[in-house]
Every structure is written in structure tokens, then in C-alpha cells.
């Protein structure tokens, strides 16, 4: 509740318009900030509010607040306010800016937030060149939580977690964020300023305004690091703390501009085509937020996504013989690179084309890259309960290890199509049919041994005997784009059918 004195308080000094007139989100003492006497945050807040005023961007501004003493930015700034998790403000700001490119997004962070827990987020936001402005308030300590060491804590400086002073041997060295980020190629502007004396304060105000102005002009990522006093935790008077910034902190954290690409980008930005649809535009190191097709009409989306009904093939369901029961449960297995998955895809696609229910399930991941590969395919007139084929009625084994892995799972009266001249005698089982041929060599005779998968698929299709040829032809053309391969695969499929028929004659 506001105190009586607070209720009677009248702001006499010029107030930035981008501050609330009264801090109504604050519980009490709504006429003053929560900052300690001599704290740098209040000064930095005022500079930001003044810069927002001067640039006329109050309505467009989104302030992303951190965790730490700066957490209550939304008490004070009369702008859009979002409070972020500890260290994550640059990630939040990234998405806000990308979502609303016209907005002016400020990520306000302390040194614990930015240089410790949020070190990844700030590094990558800077490296992506997000067109945001980061105000980094560095007081070399965790203040909100009571004075624990930060990455920015000076060597020898005592804190509650470095009671004997920071020791480089065990705690490392003070982290120089501005120098670190200035090694990147994307940032537009990085400057370190201080609040150590009036001259520094004046420069800080200029730098903060510049950081915001860069964003308004679309020049890219700006970071202003402000060396800022914390009298309470440092256990100094406000005046002593200010002097400590100038006399001690500044020795470790050199003031100055570490990166400035604004001039070259201003020139290049002027060369940008006015038409956002135009394809050529100079890279200025800031993300191109213009989508390739800016906001297409809703009715165009199904076509763009490739799911528009009118663009989908009609299929050849009419060509499917209606008197034949179809229940193919196929396991296809082989080495990676033998075309196991494509075999399955062509079969499943052809089944769908013929109006059947289908499923295709791969073994996925590094297995595919390091050796064996297999997939499960089902085709049925009925809806498919499980896509897992644990007891196939056709096993396609493109090598011996695959045969040995799956041969015992084949159902009675099922088929094994095996890529090999000799079918291993110990794999022969009563009631399981076998077609064993050197498919790789046979494909080689056709022109490329990599077509062995399609020769085997041809044999399977001839055995199953159900699918319309038109479905197979269309499926192949939809999945294989290279005309040379389509031609070869068509011959391979035909050869596979022939080989099966020939095997019957031999029997």
C-alpha cells in the first residue's frame, strides 16, 4: 500500500515520458525506485527512457527484463514489458524482434545474468546479428542475491563466495564481454562506458542512445556495457563507489568502442532495394527478416505446403483387382546404401496409389549410416493396426546377415527373397518359399548393381501379383526424380518379374 507521504508526492523534476508517472506495479513507495542510493541502475534507466523519448519509439519499444536487480524494468518503463528467465533475455528478445520486426527490442541485463548463466544466449544473439539493443550493466558482482562472485568480479575482490578474494588459479579471470563479442563478425556496435564521473556519465547517455538508434535504423546488434556502481554490496558510500568505478574497475575493463560497423552498414543499407520481393540485396550482417514470400494468402498455404488436394495424384485404385485378398507384411533388410528404404517407399507409395491402406516404418538413425538398414511395410485392404512387421509374410534379405537376423520370423507359407546365389542350407524351413538369386550381379548386367533393390521389388510384385502396373510406374516416377534412374529402375522391375516367372518354370 502506498504511504500517505507517497500519495502526496508530486514529481517536480522533468520526467522522461517513457517512464510511468507513478510506479503502480510496485507494492509501495510508488513514487521512487527500488534501487539503493548510489546504484547505477536508476541512472541507466533514465538514460534509456530519455533515448526512447528522443527517438520517438515509445509505442514500439519492448523491454525484456532480466533476473537480478534489473528485474523490475516493468515497474518503471511505460513500454511493452516482458520479464525473462535468468540469462535468457537475448533469446526472448531474438524471437520478439523476429516476430515483430517493427518493434524496438531492448535486452536489459546485469553481469551475472549476461556473462555467466546467459553467456550462450548473448554470444549467439550477437553472432546472429539480431537487430536488438543490449544494455549490459556490469557491477562486477551478484547484487540481488547478496554479493556472490560473478565472472566479472575483479581479481582479489572479496565476495560472499570468494571470501579471500578472487583467485585466478581457482576462479579464473574477469570476463571481458565487450572484447569477447567484438571478435564476432555480425555485431554492429559494441561500446563500454562507465558511470565513474560526470564526463563518463555523459558519454554513457550518448552510447545508450546510439545503441537504440542503430536498431531503429536496422543496422544490427548493439551492446552497450555500462560499468556501474553498487555501493551496497561493495560496502562503499555512493561517492566512493562512483570513484571506484573510475579508479579501479576501469583499469580492468577498458572504456571505449570495440566494434563499430554502423558506417559501412549505413552505406550498404542505402543500397537496399526498396522492393522487398527483389532477390538481390547486399548483406549487411543483420538477419534478413523478410520472408521469401511475405505472408502469402491463407488460401495459398495448402499448395505451398504440397498438401492441396488438387495437386495430389488421383491414383489408380480403379485398376486394382477387387477379388484378390491383399495383406502384405514385408520386412526389407540389407546394408546401408542398398536402397532398402527406397524399396519400401516405392512399395508403400504404389499401395497407396492403388487405394490400399499402407504403412512404412524405417529403422532410423546411425544404424542407417554404419551398416545395416531395414524397414517394415504393410499393405492391406483393411486399416492397419500395427505398422510393426514382426512376422512378415515376405522377407527381402539383401545380404546374409539380414537373412540370418530375420529368417526365423517369416510366417508359414511366406516368402524369402534372398540376394545370393546359394541359399544357406541351415536357413531353409518347411513351409517357407525361397527365391534366391544373385540380384546384385543381375542388376549389374542391366547397367548398375545399385538397381538390385528394384530387381528384388519386381520379383516381390510378381509374387504378390496384386498391384496394378500403373500404380508401380507412377510411384516410381514420384519417388525417383532422375530420368536415367527411372528408366533403369523400370527395366530392373521388369527383370525381377521375369526372374520369378523363370524360377517357376525351373521348378
Amino acid at each position, binding site marked *: 500500500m502506498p504511504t500517505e507521504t507517497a500519495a502526496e508526492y508530486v514529481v517536480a523534476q522533468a520526467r522522461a515520458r517513457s517512464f510511468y508517472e507513478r510506479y503502480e*506495479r510496485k*507494492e509501495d513507495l510508488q513514487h521512487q525506485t527500488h534501487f539503493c542510493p548510489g546504484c547505477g541502475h536508476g541512472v541507466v534507466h533514465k538514460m534509456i527512457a530519455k533515448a526512447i523519448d528522443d527517438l520517438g519509439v515509445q*509505442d*514500439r*519499444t*519492448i523491454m*525484456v527484463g532480466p533476473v537480478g536487480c534489473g*528485474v523490475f524494468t*516493468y515497474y518503471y518503463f*511505460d*513500454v511493452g*514489458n*516482458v*520479464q*525473462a*528467465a535468468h540469462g*535468457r533475455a537475448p*533469446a*526472448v*528478445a*531474438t*524471437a*520478439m524482434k*523476429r*516476430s*515483430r520486426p517493427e*518493434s524496438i527490442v531492448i535486452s536489459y541485463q546485469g553481469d551475472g545474468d549476461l556473462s555467466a548463466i546467459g553467456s550462450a*544466449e548473448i*554470444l549467439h544473439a550477437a553472432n*546472429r546479428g539480431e537487430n536488438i539493443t543490449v544494455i549490459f550493466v556490469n557491477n562486477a558482482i551478484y547484487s540481488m542475491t547478496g554479493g556472490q562472485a560473478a565472472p566479472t568480479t575483479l581479481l582479489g575482490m572479496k565476495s560472499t563466495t570468494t571470501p579471500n578474494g578472487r583467485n585466478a588459479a581457482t576462479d579464473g579471470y574477469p570476463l571481458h564481454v565487450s572484447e569477447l563479442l567484438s571478435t564476432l563478425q555480425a555485431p554492429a556496435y559494441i561500446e563500454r562506458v562507465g558511470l565513474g564521473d560526470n564526463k563518463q556519465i555523459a558519454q554513457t547517455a550518448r552510447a545508450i542512445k546510439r545503441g537504440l538508434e542503430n536498431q531503429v535504423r536496422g543496422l544490427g546488434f548493439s551492446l552497450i556495457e555500462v560499468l556501474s556502481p553498487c555501493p551496497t554490496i561493495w560496502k562503499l558510500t555512493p561517492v566512493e563507489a562512483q570513484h571506484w568505478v573510475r579508479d579501479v574497475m576501469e583499469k580492468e575493463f577498458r572504456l571505449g568502442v570495440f566494434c563499430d560497423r554502423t558506417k559501412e552498414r549505413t552505406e550498404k543499407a542505402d543500397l537496399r532495394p526498396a522492393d522487398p520481393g527483389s532477390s538481390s540485396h547486399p548483406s549487411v550482417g543483420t538477419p534478413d527478416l523478410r*520472408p521469401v514470400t511475405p*505472408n*502469402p494468402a*491463407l*488460401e495459398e*498455404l*495448402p499448395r*505451398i*505446403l*504440397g*498438401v*492441396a*488436394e488438387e495437386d495430389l*495424384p*488421383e*491414383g489408380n485404385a480403379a485398376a486394382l483387382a477387387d477379388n484378390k485378398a491383399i495383406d502384405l507384411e514385408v520386412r526389407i533388410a540389407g546394408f546401408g546404401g542398398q536402397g532398402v528404404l527406397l524399396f519400401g517407399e516405392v512399395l508403400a507409395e504404389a499401395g*497407396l496409389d492403388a487405394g490400399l*491402406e*499402407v*504403412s*512404412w*516404418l*524405417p529403422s*532410423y*538413425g546411425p544404424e542407417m549410416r554404419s551398416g545395416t538398414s531395414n524397414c517394415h511395410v504393410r499393405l492391406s485392404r483393411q486399416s492397419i*493396426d*500395427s*505398422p*510393426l512387421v*514382426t512376422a512378415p509374410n515376405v522377407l527381402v534379405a539383401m545380404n546374409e546377415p539380414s537373412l540370418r537376423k530375420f529368417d526365423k520370423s517369416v510366417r508359414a507359407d511366406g516368402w524369402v527373397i534372398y540376394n545370393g546365389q546359394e541359399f544357406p542350407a541351415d536357413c531353409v524351413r518347411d513351409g517357407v518359399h525361397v527365391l534366391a538369386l544373385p540380384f546384385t550381379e543381375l542388376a549389374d548386367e542391366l547397367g548398375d548393381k545399385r538397381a538390385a533393390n528394384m530387381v528384388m521389388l519386381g520379383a516381390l510384385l510378381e509374387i504378390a501379383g496384386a498391384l496394378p502396373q500403373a500404380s508401380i510406374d507412377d510411384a516410381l516416377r514420384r519417388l525417383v526424380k532422375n530420368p536415367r534412374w527411372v528408366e533403369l529402375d523400370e527395366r530392373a522391375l521388369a527383370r525381377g518379374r521375369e526372374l520369378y516367372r523363370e524360377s517357376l518354370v525351373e521348378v
Partner: protein
Amino acid sequence: MRKQLMKGNEAIVKSAILAGCRAFYGYPITPASEIAEAAAEFMPRTGGVYVQAESEVAAINMLYGAASAGVRAMTASSGPGISLMQEGISYMAGAELPCVIADITRGGPGLGNIGAEQGDYHQVVKGGGHGNYRTIVLAPHSVQEMADLTALAFELADRYRNPVVILADGFIGQMMEPVEFPQTATATHLPEWAVAGTAASRGNLITSLELDFDKLEKHVRALEAKYKVAERHEARAEEWMTADAEIVLVGYGIVGRILKAVTAEARAAGIKVGVLRPITLYPFPVVQFQRLAFNARVFAVVEMSTGQLIEDVKLALNGSRPVEFLSRVGGNVPSHDEVLALVHELARRGGVTQPTQEEERVANAY
């Protein structure tokens, strides 16, 4: 309507864009990466944003930013990545921000493997982050449901201003099945609470911070009340051959498919068995369980975890019926034959469980 063959992971993205999603922030991980790949292809072509984040931690916080700006946004990951996102999920639930997260699960704990497992149930359904919050969790069992439930997820996320998780296993993400999509895309509107960098939204604030104890309690109670509404209205389950079922098989995701295949075969052998497949894991379809308990002698949970879903089943049944359990983990899937054997065993026993020798030995030791 014509269908097309598509991977579950790709169907999620296409459905999301049709549902008004215009932002994807993510980090690659097997077996979810196809979602990011499809988003990278289609988001920029449909007026959306795609960013590959530096980590899952950053990705979920980017979602926080996009949702704060009033954009329908999503991410996708798998177990280890979801673990990293828990911080952001808690913040989003606390700040009442909608988003959709797809978890295409893999084997754990730790790096585990990339096989399909259902070990993420606890971290997703019970909430792996801090504080009193829930996420709405949808569990598709087919590619068509990947599409349909994604659209529903965006609707529920907006309706409840809360993260919604699509919990699918690697199989559902990786498999291809025929799928069809709505031919009209959803038009979205800027929510009045969003911070959009406009004069109209200038007074808005997105935060999960509330210092005052009473105010935070009020906020948490309001969230609780919201979840109660969701519990009343959003619980969904599929029942399959349950009308006269004496044995009810329970499983979600790919397991639901296996249970149906087993049920079809067991029915042919004259066993009165059915399937209850939760589609929403939170809210849990408690009412369906209680209703089926009137007729069923026994429930059998089949799960690719050491026992996570089963806890909710037991809570729903509240001791009224015995609950059997069949579990495979590590990337292994309960086989058709294993489940069928359990069904035959339950039918033979008349639903009463006999303790195993090991259980008797342990019991006698006390």
C-alpha cells in the same frame, strides 16, 4: 479426399502452419530433426520465422519471446532436449503463454539411445520443471493423428494460455502413412494480452514473477482452476472393442497400435478383450477408466517404460480393479506375441494375478 504418404514428423509441421503457427525455434536431435528440417523449409515460405537456436534452453526461451509477441510458435525435441526445456516450460506456464512442443521420444536415461521409448511420460505429463503447473499432453498413435492433434494442440494452447506437448515416440515420428490435411488454413488474431510493440499493447506485461505471497497464491490458484476446467472438458481417449471387454489393454502411442492388433487376434480366439488408448495424457481420461471398470475384470498396461503411465491408471481405477503390467525399455517394443501371451494368460487366470515365485520368496522373507 486424396491422401499422401508422409512421415509423422513432417505432418506435424504442415499441420502446424495450417493451424496458424508462424514460428519454429529449435535444436536438432534424433529422432525429431525432420520437424526442424521441414520447418526450415516451409516457415520462410509461409511468412513464418525459423531459427536454429544454440541450445534447447535458448529455443524454449525464444518460444517465450514469440508467444509474448502473440505469435503461434512451436519447437520440437526429444527426451534430453525436453529436459533442458523444462525451465522455460515452467516460465511459460507461469506467465500463461501458449506454445506447442513436440517430444519425439527416445531411449534414456542420459544419452540413452535413439530407439523409441516412453520414458518421458513423467517429465512431460507430470511436469519436469519447478512449481505448480501442468502441461496439456496429446499422444498421437498415427501419422494422421500427428496432423490432427497438432492442430488441436494450437487450439488448446491458445484456449488455456498454456504449453501443450505432443508426446510421440520415434516410431510415430519416423513412420510414413497416408495422411490428409484440412484445405483451409486457420486465421489467427493478435491476443489482447500480447506485447507486440504497438501503442495498443504498450501497457501489457508478460511475467511469471510475483513477490507478494498472497498474490502469487492467487495466481497459482487461478492456474489450478484453469487446469480443472481442462480436466473436465479436454480428456480424450479411444476405446476399441471395449463394449463387453473383460480384459482392458491400456497403452498410448505406438503401443496402442500393437494392442489393437493383439485384440483383433485374441477376439478371434473368443477372448473378451478391448483397448483403452489415452489420447490426452494430461488431462487423464479418468472417467473412461472408471466406466470400463464396471464390466472389466482386469486392466493391463503395456508401456515402453518401467512403469509411468501405470501410475495414472492405478490412480484412475483407485484400487477397484487389478492392473497388470507389461514393459519393454531400451528401444525395444513389446512384441505382438508377448502381449498376446499376456492376454491368454489373463483369460486363463480369470483376471486374478498369481504371485511369481520371486514375489513369493520376497514376501516370505518378511
